[in-house]
């Protein structure tokens, strides 16, 4: 591929696996370093639920055997890593014998579409508004937009989510308050179902978009301003190209690639924020499942979801890094300029 040499490619992929490896190792180590033990926690939870369990000790032993806790630690580690690689996170503790993967899989779709669509809209809006702010001919009305969104940019997503929910769902009842679709409609690709899904997604998506678009616009304006002194801008002006064309085809085009780097850095933050937005709206994505798992002390589900979050952020950053040199020919990772 243009601008990509094999060494950089291998290094970048290696970095991705290092991230997954680190996240998985954290997941393995934390429960073993923490005081107390999960089996004891399950036992005490079960005895709370049914006022004492028979053969508690025998069950304890059975669990130890089942989870391989009698093996030496490095065997446990190897087994754990092998299972993780196959997306086998074991069984849910609260919804036993359902597998963690079965519980998590439907949630992934909801989260990816919510976060993905919000990020794309934010990105497009941020670029457009930022470009317009840097341009002298922009009407005052658009200029007033920035300070307003900057106020939102200070807040964590879920605070705005609560305000939006109160204003548009609770008070005015314009939009639904919780969930991802109306339960009365059959879940198939029909008109009413799609409309219901969209109506449920508006407020969660707006919470993410409105709080982040200001920052995007501001950095975009900075990047555009930086292009003003460049030679190609001077040449474009000297050629007598219309101002509008210079802005969109010369300035904006050159300012977009660095924004992608910002996106790669911001992604972990967006995902963390979206977790809490899902809880506000009881939106059935990974964040809400995580919340339910914490409430139910379902450790295997908690581990599965946190690992999936780390992997998906790592993967998105990897993809952005790999397409980056394709989008911006000025950036090459050939030979020693790598890293």
């Amino acid at each position, binding site marked *: 591929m243009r601008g990509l040499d094999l060494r950089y490619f291998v290094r970048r992929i290696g*970095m991705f696996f*290092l*991230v997954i490896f*680190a*996240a998985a190792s*954290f*997941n393995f180590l*934390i*429960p073993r370093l*923490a*005081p*107390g033990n*999960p089996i004891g926690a399950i036992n005490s939870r079960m005895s709370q639920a049914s006022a004492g369990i028979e053969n508690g000790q025998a069950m304890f032993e059975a669990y130890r055997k089942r989870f391989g806790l009698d093996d030496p630690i490095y065997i446990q580690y190897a087994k754990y890593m092998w299972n993780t690689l196959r997306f086998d996170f074991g069984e849910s503790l609260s919804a036993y014998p359902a597998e963690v993967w079965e519980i998590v899989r439907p949630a992934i779709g909801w989260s990816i579409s919510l976060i993905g669509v919000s990020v794309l809209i934010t990105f497009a809006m941020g670029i457009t508004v930022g470009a317009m*702010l*840097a341009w002298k001919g922009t009407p005052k009305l658009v200029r007033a937009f920035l300070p307003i969104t900057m*106020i939102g940019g*200070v*807040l*964590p997503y*879920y*605070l705005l989510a*609560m*305000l939006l*929910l*109160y204003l548009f769902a*609770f008070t005015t009842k314009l939009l639904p*308050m919780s969930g991802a679709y109306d339960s009365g409609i059959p879940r198939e690709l029909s008109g009413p179902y799609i409309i219901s899904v969209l109506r449920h997604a508006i407020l969660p998506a707006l919470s993410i978009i409105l709080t982040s678009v200001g920052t995007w616009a501001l950095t975009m*304006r*900075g990047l555009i*301003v*930086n292009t003003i002194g460049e030679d190609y801008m001077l040449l474009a002006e000297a050629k007598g190209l219309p101002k509008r064309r210079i802005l969109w085809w010369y300035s904006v085009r050159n300012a977009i690639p660095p924004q992608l780097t910002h996106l790669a*850095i911001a992604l*972990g*933050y967006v*995902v*963390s924020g979206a*977790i*809490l937005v899902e*809880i*506000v709206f009881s939106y059935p994505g990974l964040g809400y499942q*995580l*919340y339910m798992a*914490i*409430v139910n*002390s379902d*450790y295997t589900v*908690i*581990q599965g979801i*946190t*690992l999936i*979050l*780390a992997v998906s*952020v*790592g993967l998105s*950053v990897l993809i952005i890094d790999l397409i980056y040199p394709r989008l911006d020919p000025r950036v090459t990772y050939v030979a020693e300029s790598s890293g």
Partner: protein
Amino acid sequence: MNSATLPGTTLTNLKATIGGTFRRIIAFFQENHMFTFGVLLLLALFLFGAIGSLWISPKKADMGANPLNLSPSAEYPLGTDGLGRDMLAVMVIGIPNTFKIGFLAGAVGVLIGTLIGLFAGYYRGFADTLFSSFADVMLVIPTLAILITISAYVRVVTVEIMAVIVGLLSWPLPARVIRSQTLSLRERLFVEVSRLSGANDFEIIVLQILPNLTAYLAASFVGAVSAGILASVGLEVLGLGPQTVPTIGRTLFYAFKYSALFRGMWWWWGPPVFTLATIFTGLFQMSISLDKYANPRLKSAGRG
């Protein structure tokens, strides 16, 4: 910026330096309205908590200490929540706790980050490669995910433990900033001069490099406090924060758990939302004015 403070400063020099620093701090506040505004916002909130606790008995923040679900009135200016807590008392106790977590977490994060950054940037080589790759890996993994796993197992009991756990994970960003600055500072002339005049590594780092990092340290600290509060409130909202004392995030956790939003009890979720908005606004104002000092190029770019 105070550069080239050569070792062997006499006491009178030191006094003059302290006086000069003090005057410079005053001038800084006068010049940076946004920074001052941010500090005043935070100070106002802190005083609300500090002075409030002199008037209001902390017992009123206990469950069942008051009638349930009262909207604001003369007796309960912020109403009571669904579990019979006086919301005013909850806020008065919760705000200082949230500040405490933020500042402690920020201090831990910046301290570790600075030590690692100075070490990696000054000595370079293998240690630098190791620390930098580790920091890069940590930056990609969403911190909240690790924090959730830790808190799910440890079930944090006190405000202090919470702050330290959050702080232990927030060092990569400060470390990266300090490292890159140290890398460039160590090549500067005044460092070279001091090395030639026989200063050892420790003296060079503490007396030559560190004083030139003040702006970066301050900016990193404000950023780390902000990130610390954000992360800890996030955990508390999930029900993973300190279990025994009221914090802003824990108030929100109860508001979610007992559907305050759907029951129209705005006085339950409103005050914590307002408080958090004020805290983040204040910290944001501080961080953008500090960024101008840490990153002078922004100043000219911002003019447009």
